[in-house]
C-alpha cells in the first residue's frame, strides 16, 4: 500500500470511474444496424479542470481491451491507468491546461452497456441478444457523453489502435465538434490480415464448450477460448525484435511434468497474459468489439479523400511505428495521403521503435514531443 501512495504523489493520485446513462425511451440510441439500445451507460473518467467556456477538453479513446481508466490510480490497485505516462501534469496531454476525458465503448465490459449487461426486457444478461455494434455506434454514444458535459467542441480527440479508429470516426461523424485529431497506430479499415487474426480469436472463444452460444453468465466462462484469443492478440502486438529482446530462447525455471508443458519463457508469458485477461474481460465483448473493428471502413466503399473533405477544418497529427506489423505504417500513410488530397492540414511521423504495435503504449518520450508541439501549434493558431 505504501508503494501505491509513493507513486500517486508524482501523478494524479486516486481517480474514480464515473457513469453516464442516457437513451431511456423514447430517446433510445439508434444503432447503425437499425436496432435500438436502451438505456445506454458509458463509463468514463476525467482529469484536470474544465474551463469556464468549456473549451479545453480533450477526449482520449482506448484500444480493443482498454477501458475508461486511462490515468491515475484506483484505490487498492498497484498499476495506474493504461496511458498514465501520457496524461498528467506537464505530460503529453497536460492536465494543467486541458480537461481530459476518457470514455469506454458500448459493447465493452468495464462499466458500459454491453453483452454482459442486464437486458431490461428479460432481467438477464443480454448475451447474444445484444445487437451488433459498430465503431460509429461507439462514437455516437460518446457524443452524448461529451454534449452532456456541456462541451460543444473538443480541442482534440486522440487514441491508438481501435482508439485511433474512433478518432477517425469522430472527425467524420462530428467534424464540427473536433478541432484536432491524433490517430495513432491505426487504420481507416482493417486489412485481411487484421481480420484474419481477429477471426482466429473469435473461433477460439466459440470453440470453447463453455461458450454455449454466449449463454454462460452465472456459469463457467469460456476461459480457455478467451485466453487463447488473448495469446494470439499479444503475439500481434509485439515484434520479432521485441520478443527476441524480452525472451530470447530462455527456458522456464519451473517446467511442468507433462510432455507439452511450456518450455520457453515466451510460452509461459503468453499463458500468464491469457490467464490474467480472462479475469478482467468478457468473452462476448471480445466477439462484439473485434467484429466492430473488422467491419470498420471509414470509406464506406467510396474514397477516403471524399470522407476527409467533410472534415477539412480538422487538423491531424498521424503517428505510426516502424516495427508495427499489425497496423503497418502504410495504413497511416493512406490516411495522410487522403488528408493531403482533401487539403486537410496533416502532420505525419513514423517513429522508430522495436515494440511493434504495443509501441503506442510504450514510446512515451517521442509521442510526447510530437503531441505537445502539435497541440501548442494548433492552440497558437
Amino acid at each position, binding site marked *: 500500500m505504501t508503494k501505491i501512495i509513493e507513486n500517486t504523489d508524482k501523478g494524479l493520485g486516486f481517480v474514480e470511474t464515473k457513469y453516464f446513462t442516457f437513451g431511456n425511451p423514447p430517446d433510445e440510441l439508434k444503432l447503425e444496424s437499425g436496432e435500438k439500445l436502451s438505456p445506454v451507460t458509458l463509463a468514463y473518467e476525467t482529469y484536470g479542470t474544465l474551463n469556464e467556456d468549456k473549451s479545453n477538453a480533450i477526449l482520449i479513446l482506448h484500444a480493443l481491451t482498454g477501458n475508461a481508466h486511462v490515468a491515475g490510480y484506483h484505490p487498492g490497485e498497484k498499476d495506474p491507468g493504461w496511458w498514465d505516462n501520457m496524461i498528467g501534469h506537464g505530460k503529453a496531454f497536460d492536465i494543467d491546461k486541458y480537461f481530459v476525458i476518457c470514455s469506454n465503448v458500448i459493447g465493452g465490459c468495464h462499466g458500459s452497456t454491453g453483452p454482459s449487461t442486464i437486458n431490461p426486457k428479460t432481467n438477464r444478461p443480454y448475451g447474444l441478444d445484444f445487437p451488433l455494434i459498430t465503431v460509429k455506434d461507439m462514437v455516437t454514444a460518446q457524443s452524448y457523453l461529451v454534449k452532456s458535459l456541456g462541451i460543444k467542441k473538443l480541442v482534440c480527440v486522440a487514441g491508438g489502435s481501435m482508439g485511433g479508429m474512433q478518432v477517425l470516426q469522430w472527425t467524420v461523424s462530428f467534424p464540427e465538434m473536433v478541432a484536432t485529431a491524433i490517430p495513432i497506430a491505426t487504420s481507416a479499415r482493417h486489412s485481411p490480415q487484421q481480420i484474419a487474426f481477429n477471426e482466429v480469436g473469435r473461433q477460439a472463444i466459440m470453440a470453447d464448450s463453455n461458450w454455449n452460444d454466449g449463454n454462460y453468465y452465472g456459469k463457467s466462462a469460456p476461459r480457455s477460448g478467451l485466453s487463447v484469443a488473448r495469446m494470439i492478440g499479444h503475439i500481434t502486438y509485439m515484434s520479432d525484435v521485441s520478443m527476441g529482446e524480452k525472451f530470447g530462447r530462455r527456458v522456464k525455471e519451473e517446467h511442468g511434468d507433462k510432455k507439452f508443458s511450456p518450455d520457453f519463457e515466451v510460452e509461459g508469458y503468453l499463458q500468464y497474459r491469457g490467464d490474467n485477461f480472462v479475469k478482467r474481460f468478457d468473452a462476448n465483448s471480445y466477439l462484439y468489439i473485434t467484429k466492430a473493428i473488422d467491419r470498420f471502413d471509414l470509406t464506406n466503399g467510396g474514397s477516403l479523400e471524399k470522407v476527409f473533405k467533410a472534415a477539412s477544418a480538422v487538423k491531424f497529427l498521424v503517428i505510426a511505428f516502424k516495427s508495427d506489423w499489425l497496423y503497418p505504417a502504410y495504413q497511416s500513410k493512406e490516411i495522410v495521403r487522403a488528408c493531403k488530397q482533401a487539403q486537410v492540414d496533416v*502532420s*505525419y511521423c513514423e517513429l522508430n521503435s522495436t515494440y511493434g504495435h504495443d509501441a503506442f503504449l510504450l514510446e512515451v518520450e517521442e509521442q510526447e514531443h510530437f503531441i505537445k508541439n502539435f497541440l501548442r*501549434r494548433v492552440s497558437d493558431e
Partner: protein
Amino acid sequence: MSNNLPIPDIKKVKLEYRAILDLIPTGSSVLDLGCGDGELLNLLVKIKNIRGSGIEIDPEAVRKCASLGISVSQQDIESGLSDYGDRSFDFVILNQSLQQVVKLEAVLKETLRVGNKVIIGFPNFVYYKSRLQMVFGGRTPVTPSLPNMWYDTPNLHFLSITDFQAYCRDRHLEIEKVIYIDGNRRIKFFPNVFAQTGIFLIKNQK
C-alpha cells in the same frame, strides 16, 4: 501557422534563404521538399505569413520541425509528392535536394504538377574553384556548397547552371527569375563560373 518563438532577424538570415524569401509573396501556400529541420519554412511563416508544409525523411529533422511548429510529413520526396492533388500549392521548393533525388526528372514533373511555381536551388558543379581543383589538382572538387568527399557524398547528380538552363529550354520550362550566389554575394556576371549556387523560379510554359 505560427508559434511563440521570436521572429528571426532578417539580416542574420543567409543570403540563399533571403533570396527565396524574396521570391514568395506574403500569404502564399508553400510545400518545402526535403525541408530539413524546418528553418526555411519557419522563416517563411514568420516573415511571409505563408501556409506551409514540409516533407522530410530524416527522423531527427522531423523532430526539430515539430519543435518549430512546422506541419511536416515524414516521407521521402519521391513517394510523398504523389499524395498531393494538382496545383495544391502556390510554390513548391526543392532547395539543395534536387541533386540527391534518384528519379530526378519524375520528381521535377511532379513538383510542377503540385505547385503553380517551383523554386529550385542547387550547387553549381562547375564553380571556378571546382574547375581549378579538377584541372590543376586532378581531384574531384570539394567546395562549401559541395562539401563531401567522393566516397561519402549523398549527391547523385552533378550539374551546372548552364546545364539547368539548357534543361529548362529542352523541357519548355519558363525561368521566371534566377539568382546566383557565391557565399554571401550575389553574382551578376558569368554565373556558371562564379556562382556556387543557383536559385531558379520556374513554371510550365503556357
